[in-house]
């Protein structure tokens, strides 16, 4: 029996785990990335999470720091001080241009 091994300490803490990142439009093209799982060990604000991303992918800095970049947390438009937790979906994209 390996029941014990099914209890992942990350699940218990729930603050540690993966955030699903999505990139759209010109940003996606610039980063050459549409999707990414990012491991976090504690809840972070969107701007803290951006810093973490830049520390891992330094060449993304100019694109992630664009003033006009928008963010949606769990498919809702969000400001940079909102808190991202494990299991969340966070998308970054430029201003929309549909219609």
């Amino acid at each position, binding site marked *: 029996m390996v029941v014990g091994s099914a209890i992942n300490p990350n699940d218990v803490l729930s603050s540690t785990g993966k955030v699903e990142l*999505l990139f*759209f*439009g*010109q940003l996606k*093209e610039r980063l050459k990335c549409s999707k990414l799982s990012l491991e976090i060990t504690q809840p972070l604000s969107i701007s803290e999470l951006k810093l973490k991303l830049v520390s891992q992918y330094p060449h993304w800095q100019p694109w992630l720091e664009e003033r*006009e970049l928008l963010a*949606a947390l769990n*498919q809702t438009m969000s400001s940079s001080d909102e808190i991202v937790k494990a299991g969340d979906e966070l*998308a970054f*994209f*430029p*201003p*929309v*241009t*549909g*219609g």
Partner: protein
Amino acid sequence: MSIHIQVQTDDFNVGDEHNTLCSNNKSDGAVVTFTGLVREFSSGDNVIALELEHYPGMTEQLLQSIAEQAQTRWQLARICIIHRVGYLALGEQIVFVGVTSRHRQAAFEGAQFIMDYLKNHATFWKKEHFKDSSNWVEFKQSDKQALGKWEK
């Protein structure tokens, strides 16, 4: 009251959508439709196609919410919003907004409100293809200004 939202790669038929808006609908005297098409001249150069991508899931929610806001402000019995994504050649249809109402004023304003909000808030991104190049369309200030008339 009904709302129909569709994001699709396939083309749509305006006549069919118009029929759906009107059928079994004896209380609405006014139908207004808007259709957006890929047009030839954009920023100087000749566009030969558009490429549209969107944020699946979020886009549909946003369009639903825009339609619901329109129904809160005007008496719009039926709303249909169809937006295409993918590669669209010159002359192809991009977007359809159709609304029905008892009164023409409400139908005109409701349809225009939906388009103005869609342009500003719905998660679509458009790339223009020219003969030898392509570039992502920039957000237009005029679209932001268009919202002004609804914020009163």
